[in-house]
Each structure stands twice: as structure tokens, then as C-alpha cells.
């Protein structure tokens, strides 16, 4: 009962934010140029433009246009993107490319959580020992790392230099080795997306080699993208763990004669996780920013590459669509974080 109220309250609070986001993208489309550019393409005959203008209400007063804009967003008409080689509705482009970015973001998140939490715990339990110093500098370097440069370095070392040294190297570009897929599937097109999640699709196709290929392609961009989040998670975990270890109940647990392992993993970890979970949730937005840069470097055919190209080609519909999508994902992630927060910490009474 209480949980439901809490969820509803949170959702209501998110509505003005979503409206603000929509308004900002609308204003941006006005500043950039004539918003009619969202709905037409180079091949639209000039004679058709007044008609399109009328359909989308762009000949009406501004406030009417605003409502038209919102209603077309709600109807699922986010405009036409013309920077994908040929025109395509923005929502369709998003549907095609979102899986690629999501896959990358998930792998990055896995790196961040799987490495970050243990590192943070290690650093906190060995405070002021050499391990702690090394971990702290590692984490600080992650926060200060220009992600685009880090990606280039990874590519140089793990792909190029390993190749030069005749070591097994990781692929440097793209999501798949299409030659491999052509051989696997025995067709001329190679990989044909089903869900466009490579790892899922390779299972659906029943191709273990395709799966391995997908994983090797994911490691480098995934780590590159995840390093920042990894650093943030490590730092947060360290500081919250240190905070928790000072609490009375930890002293009590120790004085009961419990093993240090049990004290840390049973008693301290749960409470120390609370701020870390918040940070992980908020990091999703950062991952989307990072994805723009990472995808550019690793030639990863996802949303980021599309957004960059869209902006460089003044593709307003695509820019608006991408900005809106990222903001919505961010708002959604915040909502989920709030819910997990409540679940982890019983002191936070819902509502």
C-alpha cells in the first residue's frame, strides 16, 4: 500500500521535470532554425512544404505550436532524421540503435560494479595502507580521464601494439566481425539483427563463436566507458564504507567476536551500499554522455554516433529526439534509484 503511494508520488514529481525537458528541446529547435526542418528532408518537394507545415501546425501561433509539438511527441511522431543515410523516423532510428548503446552501457556498468565495489571495500578496510593509496589514485585517474583519449590509448595498446607483438589482440572497431558472421550464417549479408543485442542474437542464432566475437568486441569500449563509473563507484564505496565502519553497531559486532569478514560483508556492506546505489543510478546519465565519445572512437554504431553526426549535420529532429530520450532515461533511472533506496534502507518510510 505504502509502496504504491510512494511510486505514484515519485511519478507525479517527475512530470514537471519531463515537461521542462520537453519545453527545453522545443525551445532549442526554435533557436537552431526553422522547426519545419524536423519534418522534411532534402528530397521533400518544395511544393509539399506548406502542407507539412499545416499538418504539424507550424503556421499557428507559438503556444498552439507548442501543444502540437507535445501532441505529436505523444503520438510517437518525433520527426524525421536525415543523418542516417536516407530518412527515417526518429523513433525508428532510436529503436534500432538503442540496443547497441544499451548493450555497451550494461557492459560498462558490469565492469564498474564488479570491479568498483570490491575495490572500494578493499580500499576502506586497508585504509592508509599502500593498497588504499594505489586504489585511490586509480579511482582519481578515472574521474580525471579524458574518455576519448583513454579509448585511443586502449586501442593503440590492446589492438595495434598487441597485433604488432603477435599477441592475441582485441578488435579495435565496430560491434561485430561481419566476415565471421557471413561464414557462420552462410549468407552474403552477414549479421541480420533480431533484437540487435549481439549477445542475445548470437544465442538466438545458436552461434557460440558469434557470442565470443561479440564479447571480444565489447570488452574494450565497455571498459573505456565504464572506467569513469568504476572510479565513482570505488570512491563512493570507500567513503561510505569508512563512514559505516565508524558506527556503534560495527563496534558491537566486532566486540561479539565476529570474524572481520562477517562484520564487513554481513553488517557493514548493506548500509554502505545505499549511497553507492544512488551513485550507480545517477551514473547512467554519465554513461549516456560518455557513450557519445566512446562510440565515436570505437566506431560503435549506436545512439552516440548518430547524435554526433546529427549535430554536425544540423539534424534537428535527431538532436531533439536524442536529448529527450537521454533525459527520459535519466529521469527513469532516478525514479528506480529512489525505489531501490527505499528497499535497501528500511528507515526511509515510503512517502
Amino acid at each position: 500500500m505504502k509502496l504504491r503511494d510512494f511510486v505514484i508520488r515519485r511519478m507525479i514529481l517527475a512530470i514537471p521535470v519531463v515537461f521542462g525537458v520537453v519545453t527545453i528541446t522545443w525551445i532549442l529547435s526554435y533557436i537552431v532554425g526553422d522547426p519545419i526542418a524536423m519534418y522534411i528532408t532534402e528530397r521533400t518537394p518544395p511544393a509539399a512544404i506548406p502542407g507539412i507545415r499545416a499538418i504539424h501546425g507550424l503556421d499557428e501561433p507559438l503556444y498552439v505550436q507548442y501543444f502540437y509539438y507535445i501532441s505529436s511527441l505523444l503520438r510517437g511522431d518525433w520527426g524525421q532524421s536525415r543523418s542516417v543515410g536516407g530518412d527515417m523516423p526518429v523513433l525508428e532510428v532510436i529503436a534500432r540503435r538503442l540496443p547497441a548503446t544499451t548493450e555497451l552501457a550494461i557492459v560498462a556498468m558490469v565492469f564498474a560494479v564488479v570491479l568498483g565495489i570490491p575495490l572500494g571495500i578493499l580500499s576502506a578496510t586497508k585504509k592508509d595502507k599502500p593498497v588504499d593509496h594505489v586504489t585511490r589514485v586509480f579511482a582519481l585517474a578515472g574521474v580525471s580521464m579524458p574518455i576519448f583519449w583513454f579509448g585511443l590509448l586502449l586501442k593503440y595498446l590492446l589492438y595495434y601494439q598487441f597485433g604488432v607483438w603477435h599477441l592475441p589482440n582485441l578488435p579495435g572497431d565496430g560491434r561485430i566481425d561481419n566476415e565471421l558472421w557471413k561464414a557462420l550464417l552462410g549468407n552474403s549479408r552477414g549479421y541480420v539483427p533480431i533484437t540487435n543485442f549481439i549477445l542475445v542474437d548470437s544465442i538466438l542464432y545458436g552461434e557460440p563463436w558469434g557470442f565470443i566475437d561479440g564479447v571480444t568486441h565489447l570488452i574494450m569500449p565497455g571498459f573505456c566507458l565504464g572506467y569513469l563509473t568504476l572510479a565513482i563507484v570505488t570512491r563512493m564505496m570507500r567513503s561510505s564504507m569508512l563512514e559505516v565502519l565508524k558506527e556503534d553497531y560495527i563496534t558491537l559486532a566486532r566486540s561479539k567476536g565476529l570474524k572481520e569478514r562477517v562484520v564487513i560483508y554481513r553488517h557493514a556492506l548493506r548500509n554502505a551500499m545505499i549511497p553507492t546505489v544512488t551513485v550507480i543510478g545517477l551514473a547512467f546519465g554519465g554513461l549516456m554522455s560518455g557513450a557519445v565519445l566512446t562510440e565515436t572512437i570505437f566506431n560503435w554504431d549506436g545512439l552516440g554516433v548518430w547524435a554526433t553526426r546529427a549535430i554536425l549535420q544540423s539534424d534537428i529532429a535527431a538532436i531533439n529526439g536524442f536529448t529527450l530520450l537521454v533525459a527520459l532515461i535519466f529521469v527513469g533511472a532516478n525514479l528506480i534509484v529512489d525505489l531501490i533506496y527505499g528497499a535497501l534502507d528500511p528507515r526511509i518510510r515510503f512517502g
Partner: protein
Amino acid sequence: MVTADNNDLQSSQSKTRTVTVVLSTLQFLFVFAIMASGLIALVGGLGLFIVNALTHAGLVMPSIFVGWPFQALLFLILGFMGITNAKGLREEETYAYSSILYMNLLSALVLLSIGILGYFLAVFGVLIVLLFFMPSVKPLWYGQFKEDAGPRAKEFRYSLHLIKRSPLVVVGIVIITSIVTIVLAAPLLSPYGAEERVWDDGKLPPGSASSALKSTRLDLVLLSDVDVQPYPAENISGFSMTPEMITTNYPPTINFYLSLNATTDNGTVYLAVYNVSVEEYGALAPAEQAAHRIYENQGLARMRVTIQLPNRTADYTWVFHFDAVEKTVPWDCAVSIVVYYNHWRPIHYLGTDDVGGDIFSRILWAGQTDLRISISVVLVATVVGAIIGAIAGYYGGKIDELVMRVTDIFFAFPGLILAMAIVMALGVRNLDNIALALMVTWWPVYARLVRGQVLTEREKLYVEAARSVGASDRRILLAHILPNTFQPLIVQATMDTGGVLLTAAGLAFIGFGPPVGSAEWGLMISGGQIYMYNYPWIAFFPGLMILMTALAFNLVGDGIRDILDPKLRRR
């Protein structure tokens, strides 16, 4: 006796009175100058923005009017506060002195980020502060200031002590100081200019010597569009090769360029160089002069020669004149005589990029741009955010609700993406617009931070005490509450300087920054991207600089968080 003393006292009082009036007038002038420049920038920038948005025209105004709208906003705010201070100064209120002290220094800092006009005003502002220390003014305020500052100075010394004890902060400070010093000394340290290219030196590895000579240039004569009289009027002049000018194996050279565009073809140019000084030349007979002549030429209206000189100290004289039967109008005459000496082959310490730009020099020049951007963005965002957050937190209610909803919306966009969209909306892709976009995206962080602090501070006893003695809201907020929110603000601002640097470089990397070829760290990496495998140094060193700078700011921010935290400070 008594009357004399009284007279003395009176005269010194009236003298002090005059000085304070002069001082406060100066302060008024300073405040009005700041406000005026703020107003010009705001109105000019906004006007241009609206005109461009309505007409989709890419109008460009001189950057002095449009480059810094956010600083302009800040100037207006500072100006309004400054007027009260100046009034207080006129009435010799003690609070006005320390208030002006801090405000003028803050204004000077912000002014430094807007360019040449700002430098002048900043110096003016600091000068006013210095005038406070005149013997006739100092006793008015210094005693109380010292009393106030005493405990603060003690705390400050204790902070310094703590800083010295934490090695990571010291490392960070050392890195920042050295980077800032090196970058500011770019004109002295870098052998090449920001956009200078040595076309033959493309993709040289680090440490290789340039294939093209570089030399020091000495302009002896540089004339254009001048009325030069025809022969017998002669130009005789000279120069000396001093020992300092001869330090290498390459002999110095003189480049002569003489040209005469006469409307008729009857003009010729005559040039001769002698290896004696002007005085000796004048004393010699014509035949002896001819013996000392090392170069002579007569050209038809135009002459361009390079003369190599022996590599030793000597005096030289040159003579040139224009021969024309009649002087026709107009004569278009240009003369340039330049000595190149101290030739050397610069070493490309960090290699060169694909078109022969020296990476070492370019990194230094780019550092000036990047540091300026990140510091001014953080400065402006901090002040604007702090003021908005303080107002929201102090007054609460509807204002608070509104501000928090607006910050919510800003927080819903990841910084890079909102900045991308704003740069896009501003129309022109350059560094100023990146800075503006980052200011717009960054202020909510500080607004949130300060609001939270103000909410806890305003319930405290000292605020109650200030209110009970009748202090105004503005005074409570500015003088009592805000100083207590500085600690987290400083930490956040230090760490964000690194973050802004990364975001700005990232934006430049994907093509939102200045045009290709400009010196900017992110852009340099993007230029080296395609050469990464064969010529990795092109992208490596700029990235290393970004990493080092951001790391240093994070180290310092991380360290002073613990140092400034009152909970951890004393054990």
C-alpha cells in the same frame, strides 16, 4: 597647546574626510564601470542572440560585446552590491572597508576573464583596495579588520599546516602551479606560435630537430605607402652586428625589399651596402667607399634581395634611393629591411603533428585557452549558482520550489549532451559558445549545494542574533550565512574545474570547438586520432596534459575536502 592639538586633530580629520570622499568616488566609478560593461555585454549579447534567432542570420559582433553574457550578469549583481558598499564607505562605516576589499578582489578575478578591458578595470579595482592602506585611512578600519581577521588567519595557518601534511594535495598543488606557470610562460618557452606550421616537418617523432631554420628578426625599416623623394634625396642608415647576434654557425642575413610602383615606367631603385659604419662612410672619399661596398644593385622599380653577412661583429651602412626623371603621382612605395640572425634549428621536444605544428608549443598555447575556459566557467557558475541557491534557501516557499524544479530539469540532462544542444542552438561553434553552454549547464550544481547549506545555517543561533539586532535580510545572507557555505563550495569548484576541462575538451573533440587547426587540447587529440597507430605522439601528449591537469585539480579538491571539513578537522 590645546587649541593647537585640536587644530591638528581637526585638520587631520578633515584630511581623512577628503580622502574617504575621494576613495568612495573612485569606488563609485569602479562599480559603475563594471555595471556599464555588464550592461553593454548583456544587452549586446542578448540583442544579437534575438536578432539571430529571429532572422536565422549569422551576425557577428565584436567579441568584447558578446563574449561574456554570464560575466555580465555577474557584474550587474556585483555592481548592485558595490553601490551599497560605496555608500557605506562615504559614511565611513567600518563594514564597508572589508566588504569592498573582498568584493573588489572578487570582481578583479572575474574581470580577468573578459579580456583587455577587464585587465584595466581589474587593476583599477585592486588599486582602490591598495589605497585603503594610506596612513590617513588605515586607522579607520584596520583595527577592527585585524580583530576580525585574526582568528581567520589562525584557521588559515592551521589549514596550511594540514595541507603540508597530506602528500596528495601537495602533489596536486605542485602540478597545478607548474602547469599554470608553464602555460603562462608560453611566449617565452615555446619556439613556435599557436598556429605556426613548419610544412616540411610533418609527423616528426619527439626530440627531432626541425628541418627549417628559425631566427630572430630585427626590423630595421618598414615603410609602406610613403612619400619618398626621388634622387638626389638618399636614404643612408646603418646597423651593427653585436656579439649577441652571432652565436651559431649560421651567418646572419639581411633581407631587402624595395619597391616603387610608379605610374610611369621611368622609376628605378638603387641599393648599396657597405661594411663600414655610417660615420666612417660619410668621412670616406667616393673611391674608398666603393672599396667597402659589399653589395650594389640597380633594379627596375622593384628589388628583393637577401644578403648574407660574414658571421662576425661589424658595422654596416646601406644606401638606397629612387631614380626618377619626374615624380608622378601617386608613388606607391614600400621598403622593408629586416635582419635575421641567431639562426637555429628548434628541437620538436614532443614531435610534430600531421601538418608540421610543433606539439610542445601548441600544447602550451592551448593550455592558455583551456585553463581560461575551465576557470571562468567554474567561477561564473559558482557565483551565479551560489546567489540563486542562497536566495532560494533563505526565502524558501515559492521561489525555492521554482528554483528546485528548474535545477531538476537541468539535472535531467547529462552535462555533455545539454552543452552540445546549447552550442548547437547558439549557431556558431567556437570556444566562447562552449564556455557559455557549460556555464548554463553547471550553475545548478552550486545552486543545490548552497541551498542545502543555507537551509541548515539559517536556523542557527548566530543568524537569530543578527536578526534580533535588526540586520537586513541581504546583510544576514551576504555577511553571515554565505561565508559559512564556502567550504563545500570551494571543494566542489576545485573538482569541477577538472570536470569542466574534460567536458570542454570532449566537446572540442567531437567537433563543437574552434575550427580545425586551432590550438586546443581536445581538438589536437581529434586531429591525431587517425594517425594514432603510426604517429601516436600527436594525440598522446595533449591527452596527457588534460589528464594531468584534471587529476591535479581532483587531488587538491579531494584533499581539501577532508582538510576543510569541520568534523574531521580537529580530533
